């Protein structure tokens, strides 16, 4: 198997290999971030490339290579290699992402290796030739410049995204507005993101010179959709960034125990600054919610009476964000809180909506501790 692995490896990831040659500097940039995102990066790159390869193959050697490719991909990924590029990429993404983190890229199809290895070697070389052709084309054609841009944007996006997600996982916090549903949403977004990219990936190839443009058959919906997104994103690069919007993350609260009965919340001010809220407001909410008291010490840390763990504070902060930070209309955390006539108003910076928010109320506080300490009670 070990001897086969090198043979098999290029066949499985031939596009990926090419990617590395092609976008090496960017890949190198991607590398130092984190190990896990790196693999994702590669796969996204490869996803783009996966698209590039077949596209050229389409044009140049449609006839002979098609079936082989089909077989390969069927063997590899199931049944997803078909004419529709967009769908291909999405699925490839998923499977690549699943497959590539595994060190040995030969989980599924040993028998296929035996059968197809020589043929595939041939296709690989052919692909390489294609690819050089592609490069030349890119240099020559103006359209291709745009494509490259889009490509790089895709790269950047993919780079940025895994980072933020990773931050989330690291923090276990990512005080996304949705409290308990956070995990689900994370998953959904993870599911969505690779899907969002194929929209831009075909930009690399298809913007204007699709193979089917010249043929007089009816265009399929997917082709037209891909084409639409390609030209849309080529014309409005800003849409890309908003489509793959950055997740709102906040550093996890740092909690220390001071003595037996006090907890210290060290990075309140940081978190407040990140949320664009007055520390007083946040602290008032924390105290009201947790039914405790405390003070801010000289170093800007919050000293809370009672024992609290990071997770508990995190929950309360999440609730704060839902209540006072995220816009109820557009879910954007980009809001401002202002006070008018003793009522707090929250104005959203991104959608412009404005609403009043509930005042912070402590509610009933039970008598805890010695009565003699509490003169009023």
């Amino acid at each position, binding site marked *: 198997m070990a001897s086969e692995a090198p043979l098999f490896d290029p066949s499985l990831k031939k596009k990926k290999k090419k990617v590395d040659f092609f976008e090496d500097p960017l890949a190198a940039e991607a590398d130092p971030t984190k190990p896990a995102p790196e693999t994702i990066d590669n796969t996204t790159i490869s996803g783009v490339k996966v698209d590039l390869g077949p596209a050229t193959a389409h044009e140049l050697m449609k006839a002979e290579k098609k079936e082989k490719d089909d077989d390969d991909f069927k063997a590899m990924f199931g049944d997803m290699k078909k004419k529709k590029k967009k769908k291909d990429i999405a699925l490839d993404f998923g499977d690549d992402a699943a497959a590539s983190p595994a060190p040995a890229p030969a989980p599924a199809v040993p028998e296929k290796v035996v059968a197809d290895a020589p043929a595939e070697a041939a296709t690989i070389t052919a692909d390489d030739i294609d690819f050089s052709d592609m490069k030349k084309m890119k240099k020559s054609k103006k359209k291709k410049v745009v494509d490259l841009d889009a490509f790089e944007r895709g790269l950047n996006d993919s780079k940025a995204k895994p980072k933020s997600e990773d931050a989330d996982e690291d923090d276990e916090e990512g005080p996304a507005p949705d409290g308990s549903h956070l995990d689900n949403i994370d998953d959904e977004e993870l599911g969505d993101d690779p899907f969002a990219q194929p929209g831009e990936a075909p930009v690399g190839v298809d913007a204007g010179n699709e193979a089917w443009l010249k043929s007089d058959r009816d265009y399929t919906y997917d082709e037209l959709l891909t084409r639409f997104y390609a030209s849309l994103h080529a014309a409005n690069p800003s849409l890309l960034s908003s489509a793959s919007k950055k997740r709102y993350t906040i550093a996890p609260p740092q909690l220390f125990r001071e003595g037996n009965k006090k907890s210290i919340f060290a990075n309140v001010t940081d978190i407040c600054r990140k949320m664009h809220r007055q520390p007083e407001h946040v602290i008032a909410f924390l105290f009201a919610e947790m*039914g405790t008291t405390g003070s801010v010490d000289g170093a800007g840390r919050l000293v809370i009476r009672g024992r609290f763990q990071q997770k508990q504070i995190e929950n309360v902060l999440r609730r704060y964000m839902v209540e006072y930070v995220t816009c109820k209309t557009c879910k954007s955390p980009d809001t401002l809180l202002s006070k008018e006539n003793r009522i707090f108003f929250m104005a959203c910076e991104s959608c412009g909506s404005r609403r009043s928010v509930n005042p912070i109320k402590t*509610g009933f506080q039970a008598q*805890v501790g010695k009565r003699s300490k509490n003169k009023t009670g």
Partner: protein
Amino acid sequence: MSVQNLNAYDPFADEGDPLAETADVGSTSDYIHIRIQQRNGRKTLTTLQGIPKQYDQKKILKAFKKEFACNGTLVEDEKMGQVIQLQGDQRAKISSFLVENGMEKDTIKVHGF
């Protein structure tokens, strides 16, 4: 011929505070609040505030005590009215109990960590 503008109705008359009747706009009174307080050590106290008037708090307390196997008391607070205090963290249990017995889930607010 009557001039329409000169009738008895004064459009600029002071109507008073439009929120006057609904004095509890945004106030805590229309919610049932379940809070938690830390006591010494790992002990906690759960308070339940804002049960609608038509329910007998004493009976609710008795049901709680029996159901959750904890002690509790009814506290009279000058601002908040009657508040049920229970020993231990009974927040989840209280909220499910109330929902089971016909309270609206979105009128119940569970506070705390």
